[in-house]
């Protein structure tokens, strides 16, 4: 039922305590947190630095604006309402279509304007926010998801999480919503995590509830065949977020837009450890390799190249057969 600390150390797995003390406390100065904890601020800073983010449609920061929501939303039929200081994907309402005053959620459920207003009002009072503090609600343009993931995601929004350590991307995973996770891309709620090779953008292996799987539980498609498009643009984009935030241990969440390519949707100063399970590898050896670097590289693209070469496992041409998640051909 249990393994031993020795075994975990051998795999280089980063534990929660080590993450909190050695990465977050040591590499993420507290004063930099507000920038990433407040998505509105992140968006502003990222936009200024030329980093691709979904377009902001409106900000609701007072109850009076909640009443005005029908006017504000009059011209929009596809949007996402997010708490600016939300955590763990809580309080994100995605509207994919509307018919008059009836809105369709990503799950296909219909909700009314009143319910949207209630959601916004709850967001303002801090229901979804860290520590229950007062918050503002952001209304963002809905990302036009790249159809590449349609086969792999059930209901929800697939996103790519890249861990960036001191500016170097060290690990990546794709998170796919499932029926069980209720369209959310949170692994602990039952979403599928697909480890992504940093060099090629191709699937390494996939897990659900910490156990390896080969097919998406709802769409039944083979996960090992996934290859993320625009990978060569995506890795430097993630690396560039270090320069904007200064956070040494950073989780960068990226979605792919059909027309605009990779878009940063969220930065996280306390990224979790599930990515190791999805990749079947520990993060510690990679952290140590970055720590050993003497030269300081200010160019994000060059750092991304170094990461690809250092942590990539698959050359772009090798077929995915050897990886063990798909059945070998007869």
């Amino acid at each position, binding site marked *: *039922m*249990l*393994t*031993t*600390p020795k*075994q*975990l150390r051998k*795999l280089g*797995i980063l*534990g*929660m*305590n*080590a993450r909190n*003390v*050695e990465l977050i406390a040591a590499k993420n100065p507290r004063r930099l947190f507000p920038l990433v904890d407040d998505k509105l601020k992140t968006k502003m800073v990222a936009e200024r630095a030329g980093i691709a983010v979904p377009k902001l449609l409106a900000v609701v920061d007072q109850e009076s604006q909640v009443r005005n929501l029908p006017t504000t939303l009059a011209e929009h039929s596809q949007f996402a309402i997010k708490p600016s200081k939300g955590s763990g994907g*809580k309080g994100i309402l995605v509207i994919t279509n509307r018919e008059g005053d009836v809105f369709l959620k990503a799950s296909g459920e219909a909700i009314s304007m*009143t319910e949207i207003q*209630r959601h916004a*009002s*709850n967001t303002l*009072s*801090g*229901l979804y926010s860290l520590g*229950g503090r007062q918050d503002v609600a952001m209304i963002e343009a809905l990302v036009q998801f790249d159809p590449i993931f349609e086969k792999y995601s059930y209901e929800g929004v697939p996103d790519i999480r890249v861990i960036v350590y001191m500016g170097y991307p060290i690990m990546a995973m794709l998170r796919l919503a499932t029926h069980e996770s209720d369209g959310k891309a949170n692994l602990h*709620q039952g979403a599928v995590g697909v480890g992504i090779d940093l060099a090629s953008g191709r699937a390494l292996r996939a*897990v659900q509830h*910490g*156990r*390896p799987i080969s097919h998406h539980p709802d769409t039944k498609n083979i996960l090992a065949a996934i290859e993320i498009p625009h990978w060569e643009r995506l890795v430097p984009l993630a690396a560039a977020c270090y320069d904007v935030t200064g956070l040494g241990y950073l989780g960068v969440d990226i979605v792919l837009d059909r027309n605009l390519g990779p878009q940063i949707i969220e930065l996280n100063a306390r990224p979790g450890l599930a990515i*190791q*399970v999805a990749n*079947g590898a520990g993060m510690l050896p990679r952290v140590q390799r970055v720590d050993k670097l003497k030269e300081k590289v200010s160019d994000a693209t060059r750092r991304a190249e170094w990461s690809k070469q250092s942590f990539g496992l698959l050359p772009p041409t090798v077929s995915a057969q050897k990886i*063990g998640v798909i059945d070998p051909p007869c």
Partner: protein
Amino acid sequence: MSAKIKVYIAAGLLFVIGLGLTLYKNIELGFPLLPGNQQPVWTIEAEVNFTAVGDPVLVSLALPLDPPDISILDQDFASPGYGFSEKTADFSRRGMWSKRSANGEQSVFYRLDVHEKLGKRLETQTPPVKSTFEVDFLEPLKTAANTLTEKVRAQSASPHTFTAQLLLELNAEAPDQNVRLLRRQISNEDEFATLLVKLLSSEGIAARVVRGLRLEDGRRRQQLTTAIEVYDEGDWQFFNIETGVTGIPERFMVWQRGGRSLLEVSGAKNSGVYFSIVENFRGSKDIALQDKQSVEAALIDFSIYSLPLAEQNAFKSILLVPIGALVVVVMRLLVGLKTSGTFMPILIALAFIQTSLVPGVLIFLLVVGTGLIIRSYLSKLNLLLVARISAVIIVVILIMASMSVLSIKLGIDKALTVTFFPMIILAWTIERMSILWEEDGPKEVLMQGGGSLLVATIAYLCMTNRIVEHLTFNFPELLLILLGVILLLGQYTGYRLSELRRFKPMVDQAREQQKQNADDTKTTP
């Protein structure tokens, strides 16, 4: 790295100081490390409060007169600014505090340490002095009293049986007209006792009012209990005036026998006296050495014993909180248990101390469960956060109130302790769990709720451990060691127990893959 060294240095210093002080107290001052082989010493504090108006103040308080079954180890009359004198006369002892001029809220204190002698409880055998009460009933009370005593006299044979019968009549559920008339004159225990003594005196039976204190640990703002003693066949017999039960009860210290009122204050108004009681355990040797030690140790020993009693009682539970905090730290950092609210389990554990474990858990589940049901209705009402939490708080209070009322009707008085649960914390717990339910499903609620209860239970078991209780109260300097341990735990970067399970599949797969690779290399050549 330097931060790490700083923590080690700080923790080391804390260990040395904490351990040093503890050993000093143990070896030099003779405080025993273990609670075993100890006897209870009751520290009783009488606090007289009054409002002075600028005139000379004289406070006269009856003091216990060395009761035969209880030995007084130490007494303290210290009240800054007041002169003190003691007067012993007529088998009574009074302490007098005086001041030329005082203004505003004033308090004087009398504190004593007593030790119950083992063996049979003795009642004083001093023969009665001539009764000081003039029997002065006025009409129509006189007739009522006469009728009553005549009736009782007819049904009794001795002073003892007379008293017993008299109490039976006066406490009757359905009293006759005479008793009702007499009862209407009395509004408290004291007047009742006085009436009894009067009635008995009118029969020529020697009787006196007795005031005493029930010795119960952790009592604050107590009043004295009033009883009477009746002289029969060369023996004073103690009667509980409510139940008629005879004999001095266990753990009852007689404070005043006969004599005048308990407290007399001149030159001030709104006077009152309250008693606090703390039980502490000391080795028999320490009890013997009491006098010498308190003088010697007072300067060097910053023991909690030097605080006023009411504060000592408060500290008894406050000093247990760090133990709860340690449990939380260990469960979070070493075990990796999820709880709803970091320190909520400590507060729940403190409530468990009052309710005891099983009723506590049941009450907790009942309140939170009912709260969740009502909260799920509130979430449909579209309320703002602060209003909703406030509504939940009121709901929690209503649940508590109805639980108390229902339980008393059903005769389960244990459920009355529901009031010890911190209601704001309960309300927040309900709110958090309800959101968790909506977002992550009931499984997560069970996990976190169960985790919280488990941590609270472990904290409760640690906090109620007799040795832990003894050590925290008698050796508060051990807190420094606890602080050092928590500092060190704060630096712990190893794996949590839960992670050994969480990452197990990864280890298994890595092993499998290794095996497969080995097989591959074997087959390829």
